[in-house]
């Protein structure tokens, strides 16, 4: 384990829960209290409670907290509207904004000692990616009906036996590249930080990597958001 001290795991362990020592446990309970699950719940709680506390009462003239959240939500919606049009942005906004905020907070939380990024586990990123993948194809079928299959057939009829496997393979490659990019970046950040803390933590050796970690967290959250937007808009537009 690259994280020697995870305070939720320590608390659960002192309560007698079978916290696994590897990444994933054996029994259902051990799976439920494994670190990436508990820290996912922590991030969820954070995202539910902190806006509740900071928003207060919504008013026409926004206070400090409301102003901040209006900038965040407005910025996200503008970013989506730039890339997939107004209607598409309004339709997909709840899901994509959830992904963006969740991944951003989940990446950043690993920079604090005692916490870990849930996204440094492949299962979490793969789950996010599979949701995006299936939503892409559901959107395609919703917008084009059975004609969605034209997206997979290419422009020339006699090339269909060649194009169909090619298109299917490149769609499956999307799952892998989207999930492994996020997982790999965050895992690398976490491992590097852990090793540097262990080797020379007293001499502020992890400090430059912490700064880089903030950058990587923001960039990876943005890239995940942007690529899912691009996949959605590609599924919604007509085949060419």
């Amino acid at each position: 384990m690259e994280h020697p001290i995870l305070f939720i795991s320590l608390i659960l362990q002192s309560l007698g829960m079978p916290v696994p020592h590897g990444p994933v446990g054996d029994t259902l309970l051990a799976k439920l209290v494994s670190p990436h699950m508990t820290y996912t719940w922590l991030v969820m709680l954070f995202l539910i409670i902190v806006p509740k506390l900071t928003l207060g009462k919504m008013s026409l003239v926004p206070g400090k907290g409301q102003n901040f959240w209006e900038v965040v939500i407005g910025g996200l919606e503008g970013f989506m509207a730039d890339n997939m049009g107004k209607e598409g942005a309004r339709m997909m906004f709840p899901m994509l904004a959830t992904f963006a905020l969740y991944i951003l907070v989940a990446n950043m939380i690993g920079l604090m000692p005692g916490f870990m990024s849930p996204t440094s586990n492949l299962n979490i990123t793969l789950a996010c990616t599979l949701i995006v993948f299936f939503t892409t194809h559901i959107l395609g079928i919703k917008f084009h009906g059975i004609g969605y299959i034209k997206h997979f057939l290419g422009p020339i009829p006699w090339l269909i036996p060649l194009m169909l496997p090619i298109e299917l393979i490149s769609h499956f490659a999307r799952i892998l590249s989207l999930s492994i990019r996020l997982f790999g970046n965050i895992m690398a950040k976490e491992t590097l930080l852990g090793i540097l803390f262990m080797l020379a933590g007293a001499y502020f050796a992890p400090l430059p990597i912490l700064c880089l970690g903030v950058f990587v967290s923001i960039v990876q959250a943005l890239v995940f958001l942007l690529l899912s937007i691009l996949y959605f808009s590609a599924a919604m537009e007509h085949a060419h």
Partner: protein
Amino acid sequence: MADNRKDTLRLLAQFSTVGMSVAFSIFIGVGIGYYLDHKVFDGRTSPWLTLIFLGFGVAAAFKNLYDMASRKDL
């Protein structure tokens, strides 16, 4: 070439996928071929389906590259 920063960010995100999609396309092609050879047909067709699907994977990788290279909005 894109002139403002938002477009640059969008293009960077898209083109950063090129390398990984090439690698994963080839691996997925080989994986499907291997699965068909050894699990579906019990090794009777080995190694031909693996080789054929390796070809499909490489073709998918190069089609991705070609699509990226022949974009109109650059």
